[in-house]
């Protein structure tokens, strides 16, 4: 198509004062009563380049349901939609820089070509001092398919672990987000 494109609207920081505009009750709990699948907590701490907790960012996640189906019209897989689970969550970090979601473990989803992607959460970080949001992913350490995941495969081996949440008790997975410096989380250009 040779049609002239309209110019994209630039991104600007969410700033320090979003808390009265964006968070809403229940925003970090993705589960309604009858959601299918394993109930889990996904949590972590966000730190900056000085190693200090970041108490004023907002994390958003988007994920498939337990069957590996996204609640979206472009997911045409023959898998069930779950009326108790839509897959979007939002959480502002607390004063210790902690975020915490109550969700279900997603199923595996298709990747490019005939590949399969290991279960993961698509994750955005918005904050003061961030003129545009950062994109990352949260994977789960107890998924054997991580070894064959095509997106993890794009990442230098030494850094892959930054996207893999550790199982810290039977139903809790922890992945810290390091914005800068030692152990810096992998972020994507998308």
């Amino acid at each position, binding site marked *: 198509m040779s049609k002239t494109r309209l110019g994209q*609207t630039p991104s600007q920081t969410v*700033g320090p004062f979003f808390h009265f505009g964006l968070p809403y009750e229940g925003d970090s709990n993705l589960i309604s009563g009858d959601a299918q699948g394993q109930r889990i907590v996904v949590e972590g701490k966000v730190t900056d380049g000085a190693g200090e907790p970041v108490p004023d960012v907002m994390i958003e996640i988007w994920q498939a349901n337990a069957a590996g189906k996204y609640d979206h019209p472009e997911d045409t897989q023959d898998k069930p939609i779950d009326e108790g689970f839509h897959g979007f969550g939002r959480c502002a970090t607390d004063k210790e820089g902690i975020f915490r979601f109550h969700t279900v473990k997603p199923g595996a989803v298709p990747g490019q070509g005939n590949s399969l992607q290991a279960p993961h959460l698509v994750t955005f970080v918005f904050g003061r001092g961030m003129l545009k*949001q950062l994109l990352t992913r949260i994977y789960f350490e107890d998924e054997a398919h991580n070894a064959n995941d095509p997106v993890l495969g794009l990442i230098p081996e030494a850094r892959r672990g930054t996207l893999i949440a550790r199982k810290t008790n039977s139903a809790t997975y922890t992945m810290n987000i390091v914005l800068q410096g030692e152990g810096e989380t992998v972020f994507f*250009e998308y």
Partner: protein
Amino acid sequence: MADVIPYNREEKSAQPPSLYPPYNSTVLRAPKQPLVILPHTLSEVTGPVYGHGKVLPVDADLTKQHAGEPLGERIIVSGRLLDENGRAVPNALVEVWQCNAAGRYIHARDQHPAPLDPNFSGAGRVVTDAQGNYKFTTIKPGAYPWRNHPNAWRPAHIHFSLFGPSFINRLVTQMYFPGDPLFAFDPIYQGIPDVKARERMVSRFDMDSTIPEWALGYKFDIVLRGRDATPMEH
């Protein structure tokens, strides 16, 4: 399952870098490692579909959320949510938040010694209609000081958060007002590399949407990334 149709990539000159030292807070929050280029998969081209959250008419009128009328200049902000191909983005959630006419947010951490307005909270939400139109009524926010550098002031702005047809369309931006003398001094506005692209964040005064003896109209169209085909055409 058919291959997904990728979205256009970021327009580099129109989008800010993560590190922009004149905006001090970027210095410890910008990644130092190179970003990994992510192909668009089903995970990226899907996203939350609105309809779940309930949006009420009062959410679109920030002047009617309390017993009395807020102080300040009443305005109507409207526009269209489009993609780069000029296609309307319908059923999209638009969230807005702002300070009051005196330049003060209700946020507990805002220490600017300007008055709070008991009749103004400053948060609203609307969903775009089938043609991508949105509209809300508010009051014109004031400029306010911040501590980025000596005598730093933010130009008056309304924060916008948008959900498009996919999660990677997610956009958070700020809408400014035409002719603001503070643009030249604001590192957040100046953080956009292309001077012409910065102007896409500036609303325009619009007599057609101005309501006689009631409120001034401002127009602000927002453009999200597009793609070269739609799933229906594919």
